[in-house]
């Protein structure tokens, strides 16, 4: 009987995988059709080819000095100064923003988890207070996350003018909320047995939370915070596209001037900065997850007193200098970032700022008919008009762009996963020889190196920037947006997927190998079935992020929500702009909720 059940289970599992892959392909085709995209639009136009040729040729000769005919005065600062300044500004905004975001994230994250609540029946007063603060914190993080940092920047700039403050807050708000959400999720997913054991020792609930749950989650919390820092640098870079002079601004202007060599200089320096941070964070992650063994030092001559042997044991403990250095370095960076550069606010006086802010909040974002009549009932036909006119269409387009991008990324990811994993590309799999010839081994090494480089480059480049570059080459269709989003997400899914493969329990694969399977068979028939569920988790997690990113992609001038937002902002229709931003936020929130439901279902199967 038992045998039969498992057989049936497995059949339904295979069936589910097949159905899933088939249905996402159908959805992809539908989305592309609905966006009005033909495959031939994918190919660049004649002009696009020319741009592409020139742009690609410039890759090998990045600019090292000002262009000769650019009319730069003699007294201008040296060229590298300009590049480094824009890079530093990007890093500075990201650093300041992440330091605020951490404070928001830790506070709200703590309020968003119920795991530290008293277990035994507390008084009604305490319970109500806890529930209310929990609900409030939840709502704040859902709202804060649902508006993309570029849109926050747009709002802050419209209300307060372009200033470092606008840039930093635009990053800090959504990042703080995302950190809070993920922090609370990490803590909630910890094994409960330790904290249960501590409360069995009579610990109060806060104590068992601090000592039973927190220690095991700290490595995950830290590595996620570092990942967010990396993302903050990417976001700071693209703030250039709404007029803040970070590196994205210079890339945009250099491209507009046709100065491709300079574009490459900027791209390379951004890439190097991001890869350094990425390597640093994976180093820290590795250090946190592998505890150091004691140093070997000369043994004590016996007999010894208890104090002596304790001292001896203490001397054996390896000091983790590298982690301390990174912590100190990062703290210094935060202090410098906050204390250099332009003043926080633009040259407006604080009184003027207050007036502007008040006008923005009380007048400008109020729907136009309400401004006229003062009656909020008039807002309903206005909103209806906006939605029916353009809003709904743009909303759907945004959804289609996000969905097709994540499906493309996932499908390419599935195919290339065996190329990027470490364990499938070495001569041995978990100690069993794969019987490869020398040439095969070298080919595999090369393949894996090439795939990994593609992954690291695509995931380091901000999706918005990728889409911007592709737009110049592929022309004004939705393709560049889809491809840009897909490439960046492919980089992330590819990396997470190969991590799953490398950490998978090797036993099934070992059996397959001893039965004579080659690595692609091992991947297809033993690895993929066992990791598919976790890949789906990542699929839906990235889908949610894609929707969020897709709401701003249209700002590059392609019809979707982002386009409506910049368009109404350019026409100074701030009420419409704000309405479309809220519309996008609704889409993101719905995506969030759907993805959360699906993921919690997936986790429980």
């Amino acid at each position, binding site marked *: 009987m038992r045998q039969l059940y498992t057989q049936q289970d497995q059949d339904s599992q295979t069936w589910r995988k097949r159905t899933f892959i088939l249905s996402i392909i159908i959805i992809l085709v539908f989305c592309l059709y609905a966006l009005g995209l033909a495959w031939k639009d994918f190919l660049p136009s004649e002009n696009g080819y020319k741009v592409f040729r020139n742009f690609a040729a410039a890759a090998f000769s990045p600019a090292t000095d000002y262009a000769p005919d650019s009319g730069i005065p003699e007294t201008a600062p040296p060229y590298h100064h300009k590049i480094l300044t824009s890079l530093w500004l990007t890093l500075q905004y990201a650093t300041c923003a992440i330091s605020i975001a951490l404070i928001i994230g830790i506070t709200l994250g703590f309020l968003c988890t119920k795991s530290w609540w008293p277990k035994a029946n507390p008084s009604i007063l305490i319970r109500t207070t806890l529930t209310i603060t929990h609900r409030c914190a939840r709502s704040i993080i859902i709202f804060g996350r649902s508006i993309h940092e570029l849109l926050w920047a747009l709002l802050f700039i419209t209300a307060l003018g372009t200033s470092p403050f606008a840039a930093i807050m635009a990053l800090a708000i959504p990042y703080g909320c995302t950190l809070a959400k993920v922090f609370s999720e990490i803590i909630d997913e910890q094994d409960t047995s330790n904290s249960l054991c501590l409360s069995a020792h*009579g610990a*109060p609930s806060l*104590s068992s939370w601090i000592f*039973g749950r927190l*220690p*095991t989650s700290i*490595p995950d919390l830290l590595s996620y915070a570092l990942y967010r820092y990396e993302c903050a640098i990417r976001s700071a870079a693209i703030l250039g596209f709404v007029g803040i002079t970070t590196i994205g601004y210079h890339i945009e202007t250099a491209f507009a001037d046709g100065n491709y060599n300079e574009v490459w200089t900027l791209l390379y320096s951004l890439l190097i900065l991001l890869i350094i941070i990425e390597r640093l964070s994976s180093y820290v992650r590795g250090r946190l997850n592998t*505890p150091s063994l004691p140093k070997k030092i000369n043994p004590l001559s016996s007999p010894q007193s208890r104090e002596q*042997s*304790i001292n001896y044991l203490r001397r054996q403990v390896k000091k983790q200098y590298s982690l301390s250095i990174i912590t100190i370095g990062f703290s210094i960076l935060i202090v410098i970032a906050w204390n250099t550069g332009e003043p926080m606010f633009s040259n407006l006086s604080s009184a003027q700022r207050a007036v502007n802010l008040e006008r923005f909040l009380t007048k400008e974002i109020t729907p136009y008919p309400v401004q006229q009549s003062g009656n909020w009932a008039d807002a309903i036909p206005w909103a209806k008009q906006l939605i029916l006119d353009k809003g709904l269409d743009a909303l759907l387009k945004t959804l289609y762009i996000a969905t097709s991008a994540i499906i493309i990324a996932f499908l390419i990811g599935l195919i290339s996963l065996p190329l990027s994993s470490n364990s499938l590309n070495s001569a041995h799999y978990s100690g069993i020889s794969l019987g490869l010839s020398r040439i095969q081994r070298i080919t595999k090494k090369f393949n894996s190196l090439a795939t990994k480089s593609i992954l690291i480059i695509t995931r380091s480049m901000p999706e918005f920037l990728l889409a911007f570059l592709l737009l110049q080459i592929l022309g004004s269709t939705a393709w560049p947006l889809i491809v840009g989003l897909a490439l960046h997400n492919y980089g992330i899914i590819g990396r997470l997927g190969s991590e799953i493969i490398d950490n998978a329990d090797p036993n099934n694969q070992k059996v397959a190998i001893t039965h004579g399977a080659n690595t692609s068979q091992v991947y297809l028939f033993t690895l993929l079935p066992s990791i598919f569920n976790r890949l789906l988790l990542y699929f839906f997690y990235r889908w949610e992020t894609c929707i969020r990113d897709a709401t701003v992609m249209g700002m590059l001038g392609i019809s979707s929500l982002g386009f409506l937002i910049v368009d109404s902002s350019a026409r100074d229709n701030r009420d419409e702009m704000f309405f479309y931003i809220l519309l996008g936020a609704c889409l993101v929130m719905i995506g969030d909720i759907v993805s959360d439901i699906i993921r919690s279902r997936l986790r429980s199967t």
Partner: protein
Amino acid sequence: MAKLFQLHNLSKSFGSTSAIDKVNLDIETGEIIALIGSSGSGKTTLLKLLNGQHLADKNGDVSISNTPIKQLTNTQLRKARSSIAYIPQDLGIVKNLKVFQNIFLGKVGRISTPSMLWRFLFPPKSEILKIHQLLERTGIEKKLYSVTSTLSGGQQQRVAIARALYQGAHTILADEPISSVDPARANSLIQLLIDISRENNLTLIMSIHNIELAQKFFPRLIGLKHGKIILDQSKVTPAELENLYQLNEEQLTQ
């Protein structure tokens, strides 16, 4: 001798399944007891009822030193628990903390959270000395400053025992502490637990699958089947054993 635990008409059910069914039992201070019985017979539930992790169903209760658990306030319950060392099957050890930090956690119910944090970060010398002494007793003093996840399964069990000793409890409740170690280590681990309990006049109640070891070391065996006590004596005959472990077809395939 004083009655430490009194179980009176004790029942516990989860939904429609009854895990413990009308149990009456007296346990005196300093007793060394093995709980035996097949999986699902209610051993773990009984241990959890003894320190109030589960509360008993209506009509029955556990009394600790003549006070029924249900009559305790939250604070009193926490205080009662802080004198009972509970070692769960998965040990409840925080793997990425150091050994001495895990042992500090034994006193987590007796010390306020801030002073516990202080101890964690700046361990006082006198306490480290005390912990070293306990680790000498359990034979792993070399691991004082090691990260707990680098220890073997048997060594981690010794950490849990040392933590129970540091706690200063009057009772040790151990749930299957030898399930993951080889026979020789199982022998020495049980011997250690029993010696320590005798030296300090502690009550030891331990659930155990290995009948041979139970008979060899424990003066009192309590057999559970379907949540009922079906034997309570010092030796078990083969016939009684067969009855204790006899399961019907349906249970075997569960």
